[in-house]
């Protein structure tokens, strides 16, 4: 029986001959696929479409009349579903064929395993987040707890409690973004206010890593962004020393930038630490021999740190005769840029999928 004859006969007859409705439709599908495989030109494909889906005499149209419409009441849902399913698949396959898509080879050679399958790659993790996770993986085993804090801060937490003299140039150097209104609220310029909040709430010994967005009134360019990410770690206890700070950070930079990285501690000034230091690392691009990125110095400045100033401990309600500690902070964006070779910080915030997918 030809396929055209078959689709013209009432379904009840066919079922009586032993086929199930599923079998009937599977047969149609197999026939269609065979015919589709033999099409080579767009004309063939169009003819195939008319043969199967033509409104008057298409094979599937015939099946709709003699199978679906004639089906017994209890069979209708099943047949209807099979009919619709096949119709959809045929339409999709024909459309695909019209677009000139190549179908799978079916000869003895089998599939071409070098063709790609549909992409299912997991989405990218943002480079700042990647850097953060790496840093946290280094500090968690050392007993540090991870925390965040508010980005809208008070003048007290952002400056006063951190020992910034209120009429000192150091406040100007922070280029603060203030909120309008009487609260004197501001966007935190660093993550250090979290030090105070945590020290107020908990008692030593403390080991914390805090991270989050910080803001500066900077005009955006390749190395400046008015919003960026900072990470700060601090430890408070009865016997935390400057030597411990050096040891901890040396461990950290070796883990993050590579085992041959050396850290250099340079005295500096921050209102909230004393002694204060800036840490340079041997340039990871030239191993300290000097290159364009380190401006031929062999060193790159990566973070600021120091022993927490006794005034800060006092402001947070701790007795600085009993407790002391260290703190260190750095820009995660900058770490990510150094680590992954990104040369424009603003790319971090454009959401360009071409940029992001490099970090999949």
């Amino acid at each position, binding site marked *: 029986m030809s396929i055209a004859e078959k689709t013209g006969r009432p379904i009840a007859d066919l079922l009586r001959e032993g086929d199930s409705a599923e079998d009937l439709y599977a047969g149609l599908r197999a026939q269609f696929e065979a015919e589709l495989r033999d099409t080579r030109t767009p004309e063939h494909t169009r003819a195939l479409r008319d043969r199967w889906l033509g409104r008057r005499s298409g094979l599937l149209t015939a099946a709709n009349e003699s199978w679906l419409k004639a089906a017994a009441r209890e069979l209708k849902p099943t047949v209807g579903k099979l009919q619709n399913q096949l119709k959809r698949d045929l339409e999709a396959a024909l459309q695909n064929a019209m677009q000139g898509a190549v179908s799978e080879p079916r000869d003895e050679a089998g599939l071409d395993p070098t063709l790609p399958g549909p992409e299912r790659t997991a989405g990218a993790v943002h480079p700042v987040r990647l850097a953060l996770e790496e840093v946290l993986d280094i500090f968690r085993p050392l007993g540090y*707890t991870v925390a965040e804090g508010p980005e809208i801060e008070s003048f007290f937490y952002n400056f006063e409690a951190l020992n910034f003299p209120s009429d000192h140039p150091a406040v100007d150097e922070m280029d603060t973004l203030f909120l309008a209104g009487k609260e004197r609220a501001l966007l935190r310029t660093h993550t250090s206010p979290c030090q105070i909040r945590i020290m107020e709430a908990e008692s030593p010994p403390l080991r914390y890593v805090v991270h989050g967005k910080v803001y500066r009134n900077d005009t955006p360019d390749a190395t400046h962004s008015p919003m960026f990410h900072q990470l700060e770690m601090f430890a408070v206890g009865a016997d935390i020393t400057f030597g411990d700070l050096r040891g901890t950070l040396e461990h950290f930079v070796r883990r993050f930038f590579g085992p041959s990285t050396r850290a250099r501690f340079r005295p500096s000034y921050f209102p909230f630490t004393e002694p204060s230091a800036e840490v340079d690392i041997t340039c990871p691009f030239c191993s300290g021999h000097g290159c364009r990125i380190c401006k031929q110095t062999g060193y790159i400045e990566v973070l600021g740190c120091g022993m927490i100033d006794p005034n800060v401990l006092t402001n947070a309600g701790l007795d600085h005769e009993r407790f002391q500690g260290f703190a260190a902070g750095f820009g995660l964006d900058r770490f990510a840029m150094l680590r992954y070779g990104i040369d424009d910080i603003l790319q971090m915030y454009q959401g360009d999928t071409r940029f992001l997918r490099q970090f999949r």
Partner: protein
Amino acid sequence: MRILLSWLRDFVEIQESPRDLADALTMAGMAVDTVEEADGDTLFEFDITSNRPDAMNHFGMAREVASIYRRPLRRPSSEFAEADILASSMASVEIANPKSCARYVGRVFTGVRVGPSPDWIRRRIELCGIRPINNLADLTNYALLEMGQPTHAFDLDKLAGRHIEVRTARPGESLVTLDGVLRELVAEDLVICDAEKPVALAGVMGGEATEITAETRNVLLEAAWFKPSTVRNTSRRLKLFSEASHRFERGADWDGTVWAADRIASLLGQTGPGAVLKGCIDCYPGSRNLPEIRLQSESIRRHLGVDLGGSEVESILLALGFRPVASDNGWIVPATSHRLDVEREIDLIEEIARIHGFEKIPATLPAVGIAPARTPKAAEDTRMRNAVSGLGYDETIGFSFSSSSESQRFGGSPEIALRNPISKLWDVMRTSAVPTMLRALEWNLKRNQPFVRLAEFGRVYQRTDAGFVEPKMLCLGASGTARPLCWSEPSRPFGFFELKADVAALLHPFDSAGLRFDSRNVPPYYRQGHAASARCDAGVLAHFGEIDPEITREQKIRQPVWVAEIFLDEVYQRGLRAPAHRRLARVPAVSRDFSLLVPESVAFERIIDTVGPMADLISLEPLEVFRGQNVPRGHYSLLLRASWQRLDESLTDEEVNSFAAELRSGLHARLGIVVRT
């Protein structure tokens, strides 16, 4: 700050190469930016931290060098012969505001001739970046660069009454400064006045009227100490920054005043004729008390973790100009006016560590000793992030700023304006993550990306009665095809149910019993009828859907754009679903399909709610949803598959038939659904 090697050598012996010297100074906290050869000399460019005004001059820097290498420090010579006439007979000084001017020293020079300075003075100040003017102005600049003390030379004959009064400005007063600009003064400004009017802005800039000119014969030299905040406020208010204000606002040395005046007097003879009158006019209302700092050896060890030894400590302190006196277990160290930043024990410890060398302090690791606390919601956050990435969304981060107009359209809470915004487009904190996401989508669509999936974990900012809150958000953005293009499958556009599936997948790990989707109260920036909310009890977990095309058209986006806002605080507070095993059935389920004609007013969920509680019913799946053709208006056709199952026994045909009958009659009676089969 520029420092000349030859000038440093006036005060300390230096054999090191410029490069080695720069490294040594950098490692002691005096950061050298550049080292360059200039006019047969070496010029260092320093970046000096704001707490160290004492090092912003050659003598101060020489003290650092002397301390690092523990070499003797020679003070600049300040010897000269004085005339017999008393300076105080030619001029008088009065301080009306001793809080802002602790000391005012005046020296009088007579019979001077104003002209160019000798070459060696011109060369030094010029190399340090100051333009030579005339011998008197150059001398004050020379002393500034050498010793850090700002001074000012007045034409004494132009000072009314040959009198100086230091006071705050009076209403309506003004002054033309040396740069020729008329400055209106306010009551907070500290001014130097003659007997009639202001003649200089204290510590900031002199006045034009009393400036040294070619005709000047007699000079009053001012060397004073002004309060940092006073100088800073005036300088900032007038946006007038000078070498003098830079130093005063960081803190000058009041004991350096006499010394600087004498140093200039001693150099005067080398620049031309002129007599130095006898004595200083030294107006010093109440001398300043500086604290005595107690320094314990144990404190040094406690902070640095190493015992440096008493002789090293003493040697460093002496080199830096301190006078330590041994006492029980340590020293008493009087603070000094040249280092106002050192007033506590910890300040001395920093000095000791810095000069001893940070690099020489052994690196140690503290014992772990404590168990880290759990970070609240960390497990929930990790789970969510992994799921988002697993669904193929690329993580983006957007700026927290937004514009007023955006915030009105997407906001829903009072806006938080910035007082000093970076730009008009960024003048408020965002109250919604949607506009940020739309910008990122626009960016990609304009770059012809056919498949865009973005996710941002971020905060939005809201003002409440209790203060500010920063709810955490997850915002998804999608546009283009439903899947990345591939040769093996036809492409189809992303649509509502793809987005709903993603939202549901993200909520699935959380304990969200009673989760419902509906389209009531979807925010107006979504295309109505193509958006929904996910709710749990009273809480809204998410809004999602297609963005109103009116809005996207403004951004010149000409294709549908889909966004989901997931309120993470609301989701996370429910916690993760606790996994629990239920025994699996030993017999297969039995399914029946039903073709239903459903009134449009009945949502699929109501069918579930109505017949879902039936005994042994394990699932209700929609197989097909169909409108038009033979389906009457006001209805849709639904092909529904119901499955029943018992754990341990098979269902009989009669049982299933009776279940099916119950389902049909229930749907018809309670929802008005016509069951066609």
